[in-house]
């Protein structure tokens, strides 16, 4: 059994809008990521996956507010820390965060190496500029980034290069956990592959111990992470290994989501795409019972009344549905989604 790097217990956060309304964006989320593992978070827009990423940093600023729960990184609970402490002791060294627009964060009037110096000195490094340069150069070369990038301005780099440079800068202190929130969705597919390869290298070479990857693109997730977690209305709906989740989802919502995958591969043309009618619930007043009951075609009257707990199943997976696994399988036309080539 590997060491647990990131453990989240019952994390809940909310947004407070301009009109003083509470929006419960992350509701009682618990999961663990072990050393050397990566976890993908999938879901429709507005399901709370990006808010979860922000909340995990322990760095709350308006309109995001912490409600309850623990975030334990490498045995250290960071959920109760003050913003200043988080900035000094957590960001960069324990957790690094890369949003979609990270590449636009580089000040165009400064060279790349300056940002690395900033990061080092902000975390109390006593190294000289020369030593920092050597370290950065070594790191860049290992990650297949040309070393002369260090002396360039961000405007001289292409979008994909910029994004990879930002990732290299933010992981220069070898944080334990890397949270990547759609880091490649603004890029074209070839740059996307380079970014993903770099994330893989970071994991393989041990510069980061665990990774959370957030995207709505399921085929991409399948190629990036070991496990996949599906979120809906601020809650975890189902979690499992990538093969289990993509080819054999249990929860009706994940089932619908996986049924909408489109890939340019033989045999995928003849599959009927599934659609989930309706819209996600308003998180200002989360519904009682199962959040998905409104849109679920297998829902019964029980589903709308009883709160559903997330239940662990065998094989490290888990799902949030009132119906047991075998009953759900019986409901689906085919027993499981079949993407095989026959």
């Amino acid at each position, binding site marked *: 059994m590997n060491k647990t790097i990131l453990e989240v217990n019952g994390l809940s956060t909310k947004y407070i809008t301009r009109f003083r309304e509470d929006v419960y964006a992350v509701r009682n989320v618990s999961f663990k990521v072990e050393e050397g593992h990566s976890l993908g978070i999938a879901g*429709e*827009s507005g399901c709370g996956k990006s808010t979860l990423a922000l909340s995990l940093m322990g760095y709350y600023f308006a309109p995001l507010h912490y409600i309850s729960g623990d975030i334990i990184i490498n045995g250290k609970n960071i959920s109760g820390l003050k913003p200043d402490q988080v900035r000094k002791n957590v960001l960069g060294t324990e957790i690094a965060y890369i949003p979609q627009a990270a590449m636009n964060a580089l000040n165009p009037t400064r060279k790349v190496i300056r940002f690395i110096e900033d990061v080092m000195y902000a975390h109390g490094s006593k190294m000289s500029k020369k030593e920092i340069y050597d370290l950065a150069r070594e790191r860049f070369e290992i990650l297949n980034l040309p070393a002369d990038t260090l002396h360039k301005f961000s405007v001289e780099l292409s979008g994909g290069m910029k994004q990879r440079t930002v990732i290299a800068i933010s992981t220069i202190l070898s944080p334990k956990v890397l949270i990547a929130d759609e880091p490649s969705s603004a890029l*074209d*597919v*070839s740059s*996307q*592959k380079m970014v*993903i*390869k770099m994330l*893989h*290298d970071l994991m*393989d070479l041990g510069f980061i111990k665990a990774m959370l990857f957030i995207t*709505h*693109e*399921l*085929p*991409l997730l*399948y*190629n990036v992470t070991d496990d996949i977690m599906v979120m809906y209305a601020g809650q975890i709906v189902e979690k499992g290994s990538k093969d289990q989740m*993509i*080819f054999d989802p249990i929860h009706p919502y994940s089932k*619908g*989501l996986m*049924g*909408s*995958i*489109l*890939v*340019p*591969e*033989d045999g*995928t*043309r003849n599959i009927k*795409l*599934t*659609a*989930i*009618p309706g*819209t996600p619930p308003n998180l200002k007043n989360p519904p009682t019972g199962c959040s998905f009951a409104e849109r679920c075609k297998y829902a019964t009257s029980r589903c709308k009344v009883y709160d559903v707990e997330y239940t662990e199943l065998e094989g490290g997976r888990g799902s949030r549905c009132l119906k047991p696994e075998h009953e759900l399988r019986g409901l689906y036309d085919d027993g499981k989604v079949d*993407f095989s*080539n026959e």
Partner: protein
Amino acid sequence: MSSKKEVCLSGTGVTKVFGFGSKKTVAVNNIDFQFHSGELVSIVGESGSGKTTLIKMLLGLTSVTNGDIFFMGEKRDISSHRKKKEYWKGIQAIFQDPFSSYNIFSKIDSVLLDCIHMRGGRRLPREKKLKMMREACSFVNLKFDEMTNKYPFELSGGQMQRLMIARIFLLKPKILLADEPTSMIDACSRATILDMLLKLRDEINMMIIFITHDMGLAYYVSDTVYIMEKGKFVEHGNADEVVLAPKADYTKKLLSDVPKIHEPWDFRKSGKS
């Protein structure tokens, strides 16, 4: 192939150049194409490949620097506003971002009413217009009575995009250019939109040109696929041929870079050399 079918939109040597002199950029570079009626064509290209410029030219929203476009076998003439209006009765579009496709200051009804007026229904009695609007909404599974008198921002992205399809239903064009109509909406609603587009194609027998960057989507919906790179078509043909047995290097690279679920990427091979 589909040579027996009538050619409804074609072009020879179509070129679009922006700027002059040293600032000159060729967005679309001397391309030829033939789209047949009833066909579903996909144009696949990455950002900057010139696909958006191409559809703007096909729609007549941007001038063509060089080359000719033929509509229903005749060279198209959009020299005056009246002729353009006539052309737009035959060719219509759905855009990528439903949120920016609406004028947020007008009610939704006006979008549908405009279509009825464009088809020459300006003088129809009100009841008839309402009936047509109701029919169009029910085609896309929207309830007209819930839609009427609302502003666009009161709808969800999926509803907005469905209303765009209702608009096409009323206009009944011969050709529909769909510019990434599903990229801004959630995966769960994507199937609904695609189904409706395909149903509409069968209903009014129109030709759809799908513009997308998503190979998987292009492969799923289309009969013919055109691959576009830097303003040129590098490969085209039957969807199965292009996707499963690509010939051009660019297509091969594009396909290898698209994440798949049956042949996952293996970075270990190339990564730790």
